[in-house]
């Protein structure tokens, strides 16, 4: 019991291991960010506006480079509205013009009307730089744990506590 505390060298090694795991995860996330050119290459679906394609808790993989073709009508994109920091996952239904200034309109498949109401006041359309990525791959349900964590903050404390306890108690 509490062998780590009795042996400071072992405690230091365990602390290093824990730090290594955290920094590896962080580097992988940032590396993915560089490859996909997206500030947030993996997102969790938070609303039901794209049902039945995406449910809450599903994991989406984003790609934000226009290598072959421009972002166009029919693609499902994640965008941020000016002044709000909640990313929205919706489909592009209109595109006027070409290039970085093309006007884009989005709509959720499960919504009756388009997103004009969701945009900032005075903003009628999105442009390319509002978009942080197009969805290209999908894994169901895996992200639900992050929704649980954000809706029940005490779970975070419990999880961190458990992880800390394991690190301290583990001998190897």
């Amino acid at each position, binding site marked *: 019991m509490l062998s780590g505390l009795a042996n400071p060298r072992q405690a230091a090694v365990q602390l290093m291991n824990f730090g290594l795991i955290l920094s590896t995860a962080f580097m992988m996330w940032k590396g993915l960010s560089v490859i996909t050119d997206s500030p947030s290459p993996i997102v969790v679906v938070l609303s039901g506006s794209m*049902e*039945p*394609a995406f*449910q809450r808790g599903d994991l989406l993989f984003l790609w934000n480079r226009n290598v072959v073709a421009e972002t*166009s*009508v*029919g*693609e*499902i994109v994640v965008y941020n509205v000016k002044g709000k920091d909640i990313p929205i996952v919706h*489909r592009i*239904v*209109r*595109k*006027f*013009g*070409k*290039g970085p200034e*093309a*006007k884009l309109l989005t709509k959720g*498949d*499960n919504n009756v009307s388009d997103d*004009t109401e969701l945009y900032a006041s005075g903003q*009628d*359309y999105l442009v390319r730089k509002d978009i942080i990525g197009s*969805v*290209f*791959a*999908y*894994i*169901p349900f895996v992200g639900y744990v992050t929704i649980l964590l954000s809706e029940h903050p005490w779970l975070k404390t419990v999880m961190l506590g458990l992880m800390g306890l*394991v690190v301290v*108690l*583990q*001998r*190897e």
Partner: protein
Amino acid sequence: MYTSVVRLQNVFGFFTTVAFVVAAFIAASDFVTERAPIVRTLKTTSVQVVRGRPHYYSSKKEEYAIINFSLDADLSSLFTWNTKQVFVYVSAEWPAADHAKTNATNEAVIWDTIITSPSADHLANIGPVAMKKLRKSAGGKSIDPNRGKLSLKNQRHKYKITHPSGKLAMTDNVTLRLHYNVQPWVGLLTWDQDVDYGYWKALKNGVSKRFKLPAIKEKKAASAGAR
């Protein structure tokens, strides 16, 4: 060191590995499944341009194109065990004002529909009566390619389309185009393609003939008088 914590970690680790390998296998099976979607007919049945407001409290007047169409397509090969839904949409495409210089176009969806695979019927956002009918239509099968056979005659538009400039009347070289987006249970999302990739054939005949939007339709009274 075989403590119960380590055992629990091993079991969970093995479970996630197996789950991801199986998921990867299912996702990869898409690439060896043949897809040969074809469109037999895609044509407009009525086209008109009217003046209107974007919403009730707006004073801005814009021109709206109202396009109804007929569609006969066979997308049944898109329905496999990994298909959750197919999102089918028809868009109108026309050259932008600076098309000659930049090759830019405008594109707007005029109609769309979600075709769920029977395995995803319970997720569809429809009323209980429609749900019962939908489930019955599959006849107990979990994959139903027949749902990919579309035959629409004089289908009413779902969205009136406009342009940021507010002008649309007399626009020439408009085409309708059928698109689809296959949503898998797990794996890559795919769209209609112009060229063949391996087992996936390009969508045949997915573009309508070019047509021209008419002049603005006058008010009822005026048109009655002209007749």
